[in-house]
């Protein structure tokens, strides 16, 4: 009973907090703290969100954003895993490339956005290129670290067992580095979404970001729509980041790093 009530409390308290926040929003806007042309009321925004959900345009915008996010992430991670593993196995290559990777990682990806818009236009390839470029560098660092931190005994054992070539890559190297890669992917997923929104906001490619800007340009009457799309952007973030978070916890549970963390966090709960 005690465990059950504690469990329900864990769900109820956050839900109540969300509700309270929404109510506060309604009170602040309807009560006149903000003017309607600055900040729409919660109910107006929810009505706008409900209307938007019913229209195919809404889903097309979500689709455009998520598609770019997905393609950019896939391209960047394939490249990062291949190049990162290759660099990790060769000390000379690793030490030579490290500074280049650090420099490119430090360049904010949106710096090249105007150039990419010029070359590729306000298109899907433009978004995908920007996302892949921005996400590749931190990811490749994670991969290099993951592969380099591999237990040498594991590698020697696999050699002794005659596991070699591509087979060793997929069966030994990738699984050993997978916690690092999973973490890298979760971080990359968040930045990929930011870059997708920026490329729509600044670059005018279709998607959530452009719809937010259009609603803002549409004047006061469209503000509820704008906030509806902002909420949508947050919800997409929750779903995408949450997916990687669950992946990290549930797919990686066999890895020793996760085992330790599990037992630690269970210890912390009591």
């Amino acid at each position: 009973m005690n465990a059950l009530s504690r469990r329900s409390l864990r769900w109820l308290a956050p839900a109540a907090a969300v509700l309270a926040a929404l109510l506060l929003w309604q009170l602040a806007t309807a009560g006149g703290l903000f003017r309607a042309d600055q900040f729409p009321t919660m109910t107006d925004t929810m009505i706008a969100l409900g209307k938007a959900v019913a229209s195919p345009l809404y889903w097309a915008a979500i689709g455009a954003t998520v598609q770019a996010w997905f393609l950019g992430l896939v391209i960047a991670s394939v490249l990062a895993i291949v190049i990162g593993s290759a660099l990790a196995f060769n000390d000379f290559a690793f030490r030579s490339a490290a500074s280049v990777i650090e420099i490119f990682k430090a360049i904010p990806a949106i710096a090249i956005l105007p150039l990419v818009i010029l070359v590729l236009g306000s298109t899907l390839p433009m978004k995908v290129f920007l996302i892949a470029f921005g996400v590749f560098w931190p990811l490749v660092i994670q991969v290099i670290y993951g592969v380099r931190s591999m237990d040498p005994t594991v590698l020697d054992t696999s050699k002794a067992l005659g596991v070699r070539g591509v087979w060793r890559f997929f069966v030994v190297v990738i699984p050993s580095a997978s916690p690092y890669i999973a973490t890298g992917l979760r971080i990359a997923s968040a930045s990929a979404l930011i870059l997708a929104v920026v490329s729509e906001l600044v670059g005018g490619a279709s998607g959530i970001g452009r719809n937010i800007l259009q609603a803002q340009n549409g004047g006061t009457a469209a503000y509820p729509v704008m906030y509806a799309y902002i909420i949508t952007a947050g919800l997409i973030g929750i779903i995408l980041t949450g997916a990687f978070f669950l992946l990290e916890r549930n797919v990686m549970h066999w890895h020793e790093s996760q085992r330790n963390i599990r037992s630690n966090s269970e210890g912390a709960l009591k």
Partner: protein
Amino acid sequence: MTQTITPEIVPERAAGASIGETTDLLVSPRRVRSRGARVRNVLLAVWLPIALLVIWWFASASSTSPFFPPLSRILEEFWAQWIVGPASMQLGSSLRNLALGYLGGALIGVVFGTLLWRFPPVRQVSNPLIYFLYVLPAPALLPAMIALFGIGELRQIALISFGAIWPTLLNTLDGMRGLDQVKFDTARAMKLSPVRQLFSLVLPGASPQIAAGLRASLQTSIILMVVTEMVAAKQGIGYFILQAQTVFAITTMWTGILMLAIIGTAANYLFVGVERIVLRWYYRSRALNNS
């Protein structure tokens, strides 16, 4: 192998929704011993960037593509715009916004992260809201902020701060939650006051992870600095780049990109430098454990 610290692998991320990269190719715990080895290391680190620059120089020398002007022309224009020219004023505005926004956000993140750690009920209640604000792509808020505050530097700084809060806050919280309970028992036995505990146990103990959060916040801040200038400002380096693109002054645009690359790299190195000094004890103890 009796150490009971959390595993080196992905230390902070697995336990919570935090973001942040501790892994850094520049910070290696390995200490270089002889001078010869040090020279070799430096050579190893710099030959490839230099080679790439040389290749870029010669490959672009006869370039006729409008998008990729010769590097020599970019550098000339860079000198004319940023060193002796008018663009250096844009730089001042950008850096001021970045510094104020980042420091403000980081401070809020550490303070509120500590408060949330101290008061678990508040943490539980506010968890979904914080998570929502953390995953919400901050640039999406920009049009709303324009509607709310109009165009102005204060709003830019506010948005940069807003984006910088969450990685630091979540990492602060996670770092403090991951502290060893034995340490608190020791502190209690030593009858340390709560304030003493905070400054001599909690903050230092969580500092490696707070640093990871601060670094992630720095990257978010730089992105937001550029985006705010591109969408909603009449000055700054982002405005400069986009303006050059609009009038098709491609070489000028390239100088802006170059400047941003320099800012990003410099900010990163500055951060690593400060981190190395502040966390020297941590890297030392890690190096000892590893050897």
